[in-house]
């Protein structure tokens, strides 16, 4: 059976990239064959060329930097606000009763629905873009922080009261560590939402720089390669960011567990 000694890992990697390679090869062939419906579609090679050009231009890296900054600011504000709001509603039943109906009602509106209103209120500038990105992160983080705090096992709280731990100490030593898995879930979801809404913000609220802007510009010039390059950039960056944040969150959680065990 085993004539070629290929390790399982290599096989898995080969298997995973085989399909995309075949796909790209077909795409290239399709265009080389000169099919009439391929008139507008650029070849993979052209998209690659476009990337080479983009990398040599300062605008491309600037677009990426602006988009990343936009998401980071919005995500940070949304995370902080969502964490505090979720914590408040989780800790206080009164706060939950007052705010929760409102929160759930407002949450029903899809993010895209807010666009015309915030443009009218704030104009086409940076504020509404960051605002909508932070709201996107705000919802899942609030929900998950709330449920994490609310579901802290009663045993832990009883233990804390036996040892006379209350107030800020209770929150820091018991409630937040116990709710942490749920909170980190909220943060990952929030990041995905922010990244997704970034496109809404940049495409619907016109702006001079950003990857969404690049995609839009490609459309205006009927430069499909530019649009595809933008789409690929968004996908790759989003993926990289998700993986990075996932790694950080796992490390934080593990650190927590270890320090608690000590």
């Amino acid at each position, binding site marked *: 059976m085993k004539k070629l000694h290929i390790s399982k890992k290599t096989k898995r990697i080969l298997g995973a990239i085989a399909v995309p390679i075949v796909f790209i090869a077909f795409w290239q062939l399709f265009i080389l064959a000169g099919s009439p419906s391929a008139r507008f579609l650029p070849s993979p090679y052209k998209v690659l060329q476009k990337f080479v050009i983009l990398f040599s231009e300062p605008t491309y890296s600037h677009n990426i930097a602006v988009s990343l900054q936009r998401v980071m600011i919005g995500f940070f504000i949304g995370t902080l606000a969502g964490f505090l709001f979720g914590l408040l509603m989780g800790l206080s039943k009164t706060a939950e009763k007052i705010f929760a109906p409102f929160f759930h009602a407002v949450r029903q509106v899809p993010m895209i629905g807010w666009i*015309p209103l915030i443009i*009218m209120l704030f104009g086409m500038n940076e504020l509404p873009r960051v605002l909508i990105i932070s709201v996107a992160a705000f919802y899942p983080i609030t*929900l998950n922080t709330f449920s994490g705090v609310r579901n802290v096992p009663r045993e832990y709280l009883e233990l804390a009261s036996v040892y006379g731990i209350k107030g800020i100490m209770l929150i820091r030593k018991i409630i937040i560590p116990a709710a942490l898995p749920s909170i980190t879930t909220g943060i990952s979801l929030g990041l995905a939402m922010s990244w997704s809404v970034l*496109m809404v913000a940049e*495409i619907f609220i016109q702006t001079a720089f950003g990857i969404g802007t690049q995609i*839009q510009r490609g459309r205006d010039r009927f430069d499909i390669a530019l649009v595809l390059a933008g789409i690929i950039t968004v996908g790759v960056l989003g993926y990289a960011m998700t993986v990075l944040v996932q790694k950080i969150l796992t490390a934080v959680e593990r650190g927590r567990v270890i320090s608690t065990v000590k």
Partner: protein
Amino acid sequence: MAKKFLQRLGLKDKLLAIIVPLLVLTAWQGAVSQKLCSELILTPPLTLLKTLLELAQSGDLTLNILASLKRVMIGFLFGGTSGFVVGILMALSPFLNRIFGPLIKALQQVPEFAWMPLIIMFLGIDEFAKYFFVAIGAFYPMVLNTYQGVSGVPEKYHELARVFEYKSFRYLFKVIIPSALPSIITGIRLSLGLSWMFVVGAELFGSDSGVGYLMTWGRSVFQIDLVMAGLILVGVIGFAMNFLLERAEKQFFLWREPVEGRHA
């Protein structure tokens, strides 16, 4: 989540839940009528109600809602159905999974709205482009959840099917799909939610009818009450669709142990 919350509330709490929003609305109305805040910036609630009533009377309301709903339904049917089929095929055939899996995973990394300019370049912004766009939104959650549900059918049920000699379609419809159904229904819910979001997006991009159009029109004529009325419609219709689906789900899952019972 919202409904569970409401069920838990007692009468006093329900009053509290109603009074607080009422207070906010009154304060808002008061602020505008006392000229603390311009009517041009924030429409007071009563004016908003009037706008909605006027829209209803003129027939614009029904017309635009129906236009949006039609787009959602068509896009959702195409996208959801293809997601369902591809999800099942991927879960049942390792070969197809190897073909579609990485492709879908790669496409999934791209925020859906980033596709919009590309679609518009190829298809314009006519009706068909809108269906297509909604279908893309409906496709992802359906593929993922169907795939997860079907590949998560417990081995013990597969064995049972073998013992009782269930094969092909009988096997699919009597064992696999019912077992995967909770996950599939989650897919439908998410899928419908995204479809709704995408139809509004497509209408904001360019349209001469629909709830999204109502808002862009309001914006272009500087009538913020129209924009806010549209916003409320978007929220209410999205909520209603989700609510109806949850209702239907309950009817569907009589076989599940009620959650309340488990806590008691």
